């Protein structure tokens, strides 16, 4: 997880503020104030997000080199054609997807489990929250350095532990399967805190009355978690899930630093492919084309996700409008 997602579970605007939906009557000064207030963000967004994206789109149609100014020669769609025909691009894409498949389920499930547990301890709640979140604020280079010491063959902590109990440790750095194991475990420990915090916030939104009512009805703690907490957190779960999927697809630094995409490029994520072609081989235009293909895939995944969610909430609302069938057995 390279970027710190800036989104939070969307809270409802507080009820006191009445929103004017009637645009005509909003005074001009207010609209101007709105623009002015959001302008710092808009400028940064244009400068560092939309601008580079536009440059990237243009560059991807040229044989631009990273180390000279100027666009280079026009090549039309040829960069794109080469990218989609390049088996190395797709294998790198698959490595990013594989990393996502390996990391997303445990990162969501474990975060939920530990958030629930941490919310139910009597004492030391703050300590647990801090302990789970602490690794997340450590920079990736430091995390990798620490884990590299633990994973190093023969002298590392983990191989030493393995040999202490008479097992041969997997080759964490030199083999593909060992490399994936190493990087997934490291990522779990390192980034799990973010989802944990999202869930903790979600749990705090669940009113205590619900639990009280359940307790009066004789629900055991496990039943409370199973039938109240988890369903009531479904919105948080869907947010955590999509954030985690996107973050995992964007994996670069920990694989690059720990394994260098090795052994023999068998763990190289797609962003490293882009970096290798665009910067190491100076093929800026080609790298930009690969970026665009990857960008389209990411956008497609997000769009599909939001469409699905929209459909599901709409269905749920429709279901809510129907009176729930109540089976009452009268014994007179």
């Amino acid at each position, binding site marked *: 997880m390279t970027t710190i997602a800036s989104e939070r579970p969307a809270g409802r605007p507080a009820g006191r503020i009445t929103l004017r939906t009637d645009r005509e009557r909003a005074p001009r000064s207010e609209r101007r104030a709105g623009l002015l207030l959001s302008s710092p963000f808009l400028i940064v967004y244009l400068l560092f997000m939309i601008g580079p994206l536009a440059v990237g789109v243009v560059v991807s149609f040229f044989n631009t080199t990273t*180390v000279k100014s100027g666009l280079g020669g026009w090549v039309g769609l040829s960069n794109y054609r*080469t990218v989609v025909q390049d088996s190395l691009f797709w294998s790198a894409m698959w490595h990013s997807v594989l990393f996502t498949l390996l990391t997303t389920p445990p990162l969501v499930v474990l975060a939920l489990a530990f958030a629930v547990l941490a919310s139910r301890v009597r004492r030391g709640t703050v300590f647990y929250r801090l302990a789970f979140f602490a690794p997340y604020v450590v920079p990736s280079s430091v995390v990798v350095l620490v884990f590299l010491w633990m994973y190093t063959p023969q002298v590392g902590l983990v191989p030493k532990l393995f040999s202490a109990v008479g097992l041969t440790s997997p080759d964490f750095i030199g083999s593909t399967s060992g490399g994936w194991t190493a990087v997934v475990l490291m990522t779990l420990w390192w980034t799990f805190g973010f989802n944990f915090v999202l869930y903790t916030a979600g749990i705090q939104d669940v009113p205590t009355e619900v639990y009280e009512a359940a307790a009066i009805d004789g629900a055991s703690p496990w039943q409370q978690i199973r039938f109240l907490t988890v369903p009531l957190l479904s919105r948080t779960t869907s947010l955590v899930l999509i954030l985690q999927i996107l973050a995992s697809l964007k994996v670069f630094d920990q694989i690059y630093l720990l394994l260098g995409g090795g052994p*023999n490029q068998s763990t190289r994520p797609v962003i490293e492919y882009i970096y*290798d072609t665009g*910067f190491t081989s*100076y093929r800026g235009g*080609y790298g930009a084309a690969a970026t665009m293909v990857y960008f389209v895939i990411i956008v497609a995944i997000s769009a599909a996700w939001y469409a699905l969610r929209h459909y599901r909430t709409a269905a749920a609302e429709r279901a809510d409008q129907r009176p729930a069938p109540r089976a009452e057995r009268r014994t007179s």
Partner: protein
Amino acid sequence: MSGALGRRRFLALGGGLAMSAGLAACSSPLATGLAGTQPDTADVIFWNLFTGGDGANMVLMEDAFRKAHPGLSVEATILGWGNPYYTKLALATASGTPPDVGISHLSRLPLLAASGLLEPVEDTGLPELGITSDKFTPAAWQKATVGGTVYAVPLDTHPFVLFYNTDLARKAGLLDAAGDGLKPMRNAAEFTDALRAMKDAGAQYGAVMSITADPSTCWRYFSMVYSGIAGPVVTHEGTRVAVDDDAAQSTFAFMQSLTKDGLMPRSLTGSGVNALFSTGKAGFLFDGEWQIPSYRDVKGLHFNVVPFPALLGPKPVAYADSHSLVIPRNGKRSSARTAHAALFVRSLLDNSAIWAHGGHVPAWLSTQRSKAFLDQSPQRNYVQAAFNAVYDPVAWYTGAGSDFQTTVGSTIIEVIAGRLGPKDGAARLRADLKRYTTARPPVKIG
């Protein structure tokens, strides 16, 4: 609302003043960062990629320069070896903040030079300091030339060489009359016999080399054998596959003939190689001379290093690369800084006998012929390899630590391991090369 406007104007003025004051203090790293100029932290900023023993030797050479020029400061930065280093060097140069002197492998030079990232040697005042073609190993100087212009000053040649265990060689009857070298071997058959003699003399293997997950070493081995009978595998600046299928097949067949009879293992890791050769269980070792320091201090191991004999072809060839010194292009570099950089380069050459302790053959002939170097054994025994050097083919994608070496080397690993026959290996090699020759070059070379 004139009051508000006044206040705003006042703030804007204040902001502007603060901004200009900050930029005027142009010596702070923050300001140079904002202005995009190189912070002036030393008279010579030097980038290299040397760690371990080489790194320690390089520090000694830097200290020698400081001692000889007490008024000049050197700031040396060590960056990660291979692709990361070259990526940083290229991007720093392209963005106008390069070091004054950098290390480059000569095999990586074509792309750097063709991208306009390097100053030609003749424009840097180096020829005035006596750095001219007649004073270097010809093969290295030749490789430092791209499109007729010299862009780098070779520091050394580091060939792929033949280590042998002296005690085993004596037992196997391979030593010459003087007892300090091997009896001449003239071709692949005699070479194979030597391996067998080693095995018969009690070695577990006639020869070992690092194979598993080591595509670079396998590529060096292949290049050496193949170059004895054919030219470069790609030509026309790397845009055309020129591999000779017959030569590739005979090379592969020769490699497999050594593993088939158990003279060499089919797969072996770097640490396995180290263990076998250090403990006298292997007669020969195929590796770069830079491994000398890792065996020099092994107790009870007596070894020597010689160039490989002629194998499939008539003449011996040595696959090699060179470290060289380059002056990255920087339009903003003052002439005084350039002069300091040139002095620094010359000083490194003069002190390159220190560098030879890492096993490398100095390219600077006066060092190569100096007592300080000729007293070094086994370094003095394979100087000839520097003159028979064959480098990576000229292309924008070849060179030390490149993806090209990884890709092609991986195919060679498959052949050595016996998972691919010579014929399939040659076909796979051709396909590997095609992937690079058909990719669009970022810049035109030559």
